């Protein structure tokens, strides 16, 4: 083993372990982000605060409200006496939806033409659309129930059935748990951010503190310096991957269906793109802050254009083309497929190839820009 290389790696590790700030960043931040995003970055809408104006005050109206209560999409937060109250609650954001049951609900129901008003705060389209479909679902189910009851009461044996029944089966994530979709993304983001930021700041710090001048004058070859500085972060990134996978699996119940070895190898390939970006940023930036900022500038588009939060299918064509430039995009496809679907390598080979090309390309560009010199 090259002893110069080993010395650089050992020195880098000593520095990392003596610098509390870096250590916290490496050990705590990934887990913190995983918990933050695992719980907050979710599209599962639950417990929408609902305001109710029941003008009917009949057993029938109470039955309708009970069916709302039974589903956990809504939480009846307010029972009010006027439409003005509803308006006030929704404008204040205290209630996100409201149900108005008219005074003649019970009579109309027996006549078969009851109407209920449902008011929705559409300012957040994601939760509004979920709330809307939930409300429709609840009302329809309630209506079907009422019909069945009525037929039963008239002694008819007829069972009510919709003419077409769609039977839905959801594969891979049957409960549609957002966390299972988010955690692979979090792994990708953490690997990228940690690798890029730590690499960039650790190289720039040598320049900021003047230690680079001493390094330059040693016989260390440029590639040895690059590999020696990056290696510790590859090793740490490896442990971060394991750490986040473990917490994702045992805490959030995210399945690991694919080959664990393959997951780790491909994660390290992806890590290399992060290291490359960090190294590249370090050749542009003069201070650690500048380096940090440069990395963030690449991190944000990479998060938004990779399908992390927003589906790529929903993007305008131009942005979708742009997303092909984001290495994170390929990694997300790979890691989600491996974790949730348990596919084999040949199913994702295009993405693996694209990601590997990016890793090699970015690293080469950064290494070519990297100069073991002061100017």
């Amino acid at each position, binding site marked *: 083993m090259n002893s110069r290389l080993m*010395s650089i790696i050992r020195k880098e590790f000593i*520095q990392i372990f003596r610098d509390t700030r870096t250590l916290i960043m490496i050990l705590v931040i990934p887990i913190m982000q995983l918990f933050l995003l695992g719980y907050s970055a979710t599209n599962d809408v639950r417990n929408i605060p609902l305001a109710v104006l029941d003008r009917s005050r009949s057993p029938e109206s109470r039955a309708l409200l009970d069916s709302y209560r039974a589903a956990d999409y809504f939480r009846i937060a307010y029972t009010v006496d006027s439409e003005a109250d509803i308006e006030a609650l929704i404008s204040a954001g205290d209630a996100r939806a409201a149900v108005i049951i008219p005074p003649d609900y019970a009579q109309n129901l027996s006549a078969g033409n009851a109407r209920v008003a449902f008011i929705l705060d559409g300012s957040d389209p994601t939760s509004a659309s979920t709330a809307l479909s939930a409300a429709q679902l609840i009302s329809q189910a309630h209506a079907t129930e009422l019909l069945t009851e009525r037929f039963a009461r008239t002694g008819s044996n007829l069972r009510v059935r919709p003419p077409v029944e769609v039977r839905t089966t959801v594969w891979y994530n049957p409960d549609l748990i957002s966390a299972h979709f988010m955690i692979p993304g979090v792994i990708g983001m953490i690997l990228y951010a940690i690798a890029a930021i730590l690499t960039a700041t650790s190289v720039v710090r040598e320049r900021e503190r003047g*230690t680079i001048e*001493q390094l*330059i004058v*040693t*016989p*260390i070859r440029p590639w040895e310096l690059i590999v020696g500085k990056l290696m510790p972060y590859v090793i740490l990134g490896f442990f971060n991957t394991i750490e986040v996978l473990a917490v994702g699996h045992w805490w959030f119940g995210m399945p690991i269906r694919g080959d664990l070895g393959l997951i780790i190898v491909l994660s390290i390939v992806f890590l290399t793109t992060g290291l490359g970006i960090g190294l590249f940023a370090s050749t542009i930036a003069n201070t650690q802050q500048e380096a940090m900022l440069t990395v963030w500038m690449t991190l944000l588009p990479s998060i938004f254009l990779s399908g992390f939060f927003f589906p790529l299918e929903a993007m305008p064509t131009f942005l979708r083309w742009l997303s092909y430039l984001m290495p994170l995009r390929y990694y997300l496809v790979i890691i989600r497929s491996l974790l949730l679907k348990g596919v084999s390598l040949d199913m994702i080979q295009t993405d693996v190839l694209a990601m590997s090309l990016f890793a090699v390309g970015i690293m080469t560009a950064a290494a070519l820009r990297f100069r073991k010199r002061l100017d």
Partner: protein
Amino acid sequence: MTNYLVQATGLQKHFGNTRAVEGVSLNVKEGEIYGLVGSDGAGKTTTIRLLVGALLPDAGEVEICGYNILKQTEQARSTIGYLSQRFSMYEELTVLENIRFFAEVRGLSSTEWLPRSMEILEFVGLDKFKDRPAGQLSGGMRQKLGLASALVTRPRLLLLDEPTTGVDPVTRQDFWQLVIKLVAQPALNSSPATHNSQPEGVSVIISTPYMDEASRCHRVGFMKSGRIIAEDTPTNLRSRLNGRILELRGSPLDILRHIAHQNEYVEDVQAFGDRLHIRVQEGRAKDVLGRLKSDIESVGGHVDELRSAPPVLEDVFIALSDHEYASAPHPLKT
């Protein structure tokens, strides 16, 4: 045959419109302490950085121990010990860890580095502080650590960029004793394997703004605006002003200075504590000595002593710094 450890020719380096180094050539012999002096911004640091290959020259060549610094970089650098102007050890690492790191990356094996590091730490007097983080060392100790890490691989050429700037006088003295000892005892520097053969001599290039330090060098190059405008032994440099420096003591100083300036043969007047050093034109010392005392007394000044004095290096550098000498390449050659 003279053995040159450093041969640099026609070095040039521009930063934008700033001509930091403008055609510097210098040769340093084995066993020589070469001083680079000059005011801030004269180009000393850039010159040293070009010599070690930390900067790419716009023009010119550098050979260190026979290796071209740009083409045989690795071989050339394995002969160099370099102490930069800024503290450039790792603050998180202890004294010994720093030495070890720089020893290993410069090629010492795992069995060599420890005895060598301890020997060098003892040499600079840091052995008692070997486990202290470098970030917690005082200014003088930091410089000694830098020197130790530059010396640990027993380099043949030591480049020190203003090593004593901001260091207290006692430590400065210590530091110079170390440098002088190093050059005087090549045995310390040769590896045990080559003990039987001719010990290899060490050369030192040191930049400094202090004239007392310059006078300790074997040879001094005076830099101004990116050029070496004078280069000689301190004695020869001083002798260029022989007979042209007068020392004047008396009171009040402002009258003494004023009257001295009015004399047509006086080129410059500088205060040295309670005395004035007056530089006169070539061969005019007698004229000035004969007239100055009476001139001063005629306006109410008082002269304690007026005599011809041996020039010090400071006089030489002040003379060199004057505009009239800046353009000509060797203005003071007689």
